[in-house]
């Protein structure tokens, strides 16, 4: 149950963004991916999900290459990119339900309501997402974390657009997930107040 990355190299156009990148992430660990703008964080996260093809190296899940056991890997993965993956015409509940169903798990309306309420969206269950503010949309997307039982969360700048209350809430959710034996990989330019022993830090600027 661990994610092992070995001598990974990715390039955009003709330029290698990073090379020889290796790390190992075990359950109960959170990895904070750092780096200046344009250092390749988004590219790395998408590569780990299998959305972007890497040039060299190897990514292993439970000791097997993710290319060969893609299906089990995907069942354990939750990726939340820069985009929210919400349908603007559906309301939060419908959005969350379809996304869960797609991931192969069906959730009840009580569960979604509970998740939305925790994220301060009580009263917005029936509002089309289009009518929510930036931060509210982000909150809906993040509610997925509470509904999924994926082990590995990959989050690209999850704190963007959130206000102070929501940032704290998300941090506590991350900590809880990690304490329960989950794994998290995230990028953010804000400070992350999480105990150093639980946290792996990886700075991409060093791999150029």
């Amino acid at each position: 149950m661990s994610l092992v990355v070995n001598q990974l190299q990715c390039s955009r156009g003709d330029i290698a963004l990073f090379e020889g990148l290796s790390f190992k992430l075990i359950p109960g660990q959170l990895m904070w991916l750092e780096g200046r703008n344009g250092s390749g964080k988004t590219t790395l996260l998408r590569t780990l999900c299998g959305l972007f093809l890497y040039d060299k190296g190897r990514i292993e899940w439970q000791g097997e290459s993710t290319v060969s056991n893609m299906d089990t890997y995907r069942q354990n993965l939750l990726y939340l990119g820069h985009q929210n993956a919400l349908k603007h015409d559906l309301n939060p509940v419908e959005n969350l339900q379809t996304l869960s169903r797609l991931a192969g798990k069906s959730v009840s309306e009580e569960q979604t309501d509970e998740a939305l309420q925790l994220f301060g969206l009580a009263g917005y269950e029936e509002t089309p997402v289009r009518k929510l503010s930036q931060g509210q949309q982000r909150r809906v997307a993040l509610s997925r974390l509470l509904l999924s039982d994926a082990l590995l969360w990959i989050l690209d700048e999850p704190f963007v657009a959130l206000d102070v209350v929501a940032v704290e809430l998300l941090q506590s959710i991350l900590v809880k997930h990690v304490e329960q034996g989950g794994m998290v990989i995230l990028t953010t330019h804000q400070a992350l107040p999480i105990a150093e022993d639980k946290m792996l830090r990886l700075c991409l600027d060093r791999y150029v």
Partner: protein
Amino acid sequence: MFDSFRALVKRDLLLAMRRRSDVFTVLLFFIIVVSIFPLGISFEKAILQKIAPGVVWVAALLASTLALERIFANDYADGTLEQILLTAQPLSILVFAKIFAHWLLTGLPLVLIAPLAGLQYHLSATTIGTMMVMLLIGTPILSMIGAIGAALTLGLRGGGILISLLVLPLYIPVLVYGSGAIEASMQGDVSLQPYYLLLLAFLLLALVFAPWATAASLRISVE
């Protein structure tokens, strides 16, 4: 697997219910295109009957390609497509779900509205019948082929018109046999069976290959 197929179809139908106008726009586009041709060509009954099969089929091709622009575009823009690609289900099944929902919402209505076009062009009842059957077999083919084009042009500027470009030439067999059958049924003494069989074979081919090709194209386009 079947569960996520159902979830996707259901979601797309739900979305369409929320924006019912979407379904009607495709229909109306078809009707308007069919209706403006006589204004540019002629109102004579003989000429209208002569051009009817071609006009109806070209209008159907155009309506279907234009509607196709949206089949993946929205999912791509809001990131849902990435999530679909990341599920553990076989992608071609999910893609098939999307194509199926799309046909229900755009192809089927065309079949049902076609008699109106037939009346405008003074076609007889049997000819209209043939036209509907041919559209029923032909429009799913259009959706299938079109989906590949839509997947390939995903997120590119000028999507709509670019798809038409890729896809319209591929539609030609459907156009030729579809309108051929209608013309044949107007003459009355020709057997229509070969037309049906050819189009059915083509449909089968599309059913087997299109979801798979679309899935592959999507993976390429999203990277």
